């Protein structure tokens, strides 16, 4: 997907002013946040489970090459072909090659964020292969001129049912439905024939299990199962960081993923897929391919941002982020929004292309406390800010302001003088009022709120006077 993160601030402004979006965001926030809080009560010890998940992810990432090789061996033993792709362009080329080899004219897809990174649908279309998204949210985006998703779990988080109703009426040429149940049924009926006629199914992979060479798929709709059961060819596209050691580790992560994502104790469908159809089986693919994608991940291994590779793509961080709650996902401008997107986008798409993303955070850590694998997101955002300073990507005015503040703050006499004048100036601006409505030196502040007036004298002055009075006695 094309990177548009450099327009974050402008887009954020539009999103704040979008009244319908604000209503949609408000509704979704309470559902995800409250449901998750309720769901984690079911676990004997949520914190211990988080700790176990973090440990197993770190263990795997610490020997990622070995675990990937093990996965490759096991998957190959069971009839799958394992391919490796450096970037999105290679992913697209490989999928097209596989499609041509098997005479594929139509592909059904269940959710794959990697395929979004790679812009796969456009590439397939250009190669004469029709891709059909089957995840209801992804389908809605596809028929809306390939609109990008705004959330990694709930791709149309930003849409109202009226939006969807109008879109369906236009695309399906059927009378508009007003009821969400009816719209869902309509989508089911429109998509069912595609499921049964596609020659190839493409899925992502929530986890790759090294022990058995399997892919684990987490869905609620049943489309994941359709896409991987009906067609003769199944292609799994996923990142190299998704490998985990054992089926027991899968069980641990499955206690956390659905709860953290949607507040469910388990997703409706959870499938472990291993190899091709066995002889005599009437369903399942005859051919199975894994495309393991680098896309910037290999360079993060063992480095200062390695913790981000633990991510299991639950979306809890963005659900709890005050910035995401205010502007939604599209402002972030790429595949991954919210806190995890603010870390991954600069790393995958280039720091200079996503300058605002690590800056647009309050570092409140509402994300970090809910992350099921304990990724220290505010730490990583701060480290990205440090990288920007090191690479001299910050505005000159900011560098000057920080240097000036630091220079003065290291010189108490200068500091005392400067602050004395500053508070008297602010006090004068306030003109007796408790608040200053417009502050030229901080326009971003006073656009949306007043600036409280200072008391008028600094603590330093007043304390010195107090001590002098006491000394004099």
């Amino acid at each position, binding site marked *: 997907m094309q990177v548009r993160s450099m327009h974050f601030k402008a887009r954020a402004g539009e999103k704040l002013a979008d009244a319908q979006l604000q209503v949609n965001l408000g*509704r*979704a926030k309470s559902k*995800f946040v409250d449901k998750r809080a309720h769901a984690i009560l079911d*676990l*004997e*010890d949520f914190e*211990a*489970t988080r700790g176990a998940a973090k440990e197993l992810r770190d263990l795997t990432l*610490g*020997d990622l090459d*070995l*675990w990937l090789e*093990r996965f490759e061996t096991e998957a190959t033993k069971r009839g799958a072909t394992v391919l*490796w*792709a*450096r970037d999105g362009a290679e992913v697209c080329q490989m999928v097209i090659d596989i499609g041509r080899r098997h005479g594929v004219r139509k592909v059904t897809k269940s959710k794959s964020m990697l395929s979004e990174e790679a812009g796969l649908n456009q590439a397939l279309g250009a190669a004469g292969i029709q891709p059909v998204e*089957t995840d*209801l*949210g992804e389908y*809605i985006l596809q028929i809306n001129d390939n609109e990008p998703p705004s959330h990694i779990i709930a*791709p*149309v*988080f930003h849409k109202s*049912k009226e939006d969807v109703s109008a879109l369906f009426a236009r695309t399906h040429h059927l009378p508009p439905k007003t009821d*969400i*149940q009816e719209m*869902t*049924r309509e989508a089911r009926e429109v998509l069912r024939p595609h499921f049964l006629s596609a020659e190839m199914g493409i899925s992502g992979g929530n986890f790759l299990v090294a022990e058995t060479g*399997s892919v684990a798929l987490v869905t*609620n*709709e*049943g*489309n994941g*199962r*359709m896409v*991987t*059961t009906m067609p003769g060819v199944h292609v799994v596209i996923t990142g*190299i960081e998704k490998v985990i050691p*054992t*089926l*027991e*580790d899968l069980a*641990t992560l*499955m206690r956390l993923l659905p709860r953290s994502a949607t507040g469910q*104790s*388990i997703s409706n*469908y959870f*499938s*472990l*897929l*291993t190899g091709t159809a*066995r002889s005599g*089986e009437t*369903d*399942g693919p005859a051919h199975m391919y894994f495309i393991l994608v*680098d896309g910037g991940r*290999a*360079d*993060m291994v*063992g480095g200062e941002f390695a913790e981000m590779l633990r991510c299991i793509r639950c979306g809890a961080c963005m659900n709890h982020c005050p910035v995401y709650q205010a502007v939604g996902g599209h402002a972030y401008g790429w595949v991954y929004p919210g806190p995890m997107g603010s870390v991954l986008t600069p790393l995958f798409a280039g720091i200079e292309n996503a300058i605002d993303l690590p800056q647009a955070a309050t570092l409140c850590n509402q994300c970090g406390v809910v992350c099921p694998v304990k990724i220290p997101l505010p730490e990583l955002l701060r480290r990205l800010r440090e990288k920007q300073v090191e690479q001299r990507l910050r505005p000159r005015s900011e560098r000057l302001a920080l240097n000036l503040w630091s220079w003065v703050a290291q010189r108490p006499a200068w500091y005392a003088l400067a602050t004395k004048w500053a508070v008297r100036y602010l006090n004068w601006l306030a003109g007796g009022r408790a608040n200053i409505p417009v502050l030229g030196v901080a326009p971003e502040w006073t656009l949306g709120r007043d600036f409280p007036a200072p008391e008028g004298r600094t603590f330093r002055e007043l304390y010195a006077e107090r001590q002098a009075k006491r000394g004099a006695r």
Partner: protein
Amino acid sequence: MSSREDILGRVRRQLGRTPENAVRGRSAMEGYIAARAPGPHGIISGDLVSHFRDKSAALSSSVEDITDLAQAPAAIARYLASHGLPQQAVCWPRFAALDWKAAGLQVESRPTHGADLVGISGCFCALAETGTLMLCSGVDTPAALSLLPETHIAIVAAERIVAGMEEAWTLLRSELGEVPRAVNFISGPSRTGDIEQTIVLGAHGPYRVHILILGTP
């Protein structure tokens, strides 16, 4: 250089991989896999069957008890009639010999191709922790039967209800040895919340799941 060598090469360099630490690493890896250590569990209150029943109901599956497999046809006929559903279905081969005709049902033991409205399956085992059915694909246990029809009816033997996923994996390894092509964990009717985060049952999979628990002690 192939993409594979490029990618693995970079990962190895980032990790400081040497032939010596690779040997140690592989040994540690095999040890970890062999240990199969489980993580912290979920909470199960009461006995496994009651917990399973409660969790299934919470997921909008309907649950019924039968004491003998021979009662299944009548129970299923009652269920279908009460929902105004057709009295016909496809089933797994293991249920072909049940007396469906006596219950007024037309049930064929064959794979489904999409037009069947009701599918009757068994399961490999069930998870009490979350009210989940675990089905393993195979020649006699086709996966599509629990997916394509609008109604899925599952017959679960009470002694096959285990605590959680870890217990299910242990059972699978000991009874099947090999992991089948597809292990499908099913937790209620299919659903989506994509439109306005409002949950709707019956997305692409079945609209309804009815579970018959056989032989509760």
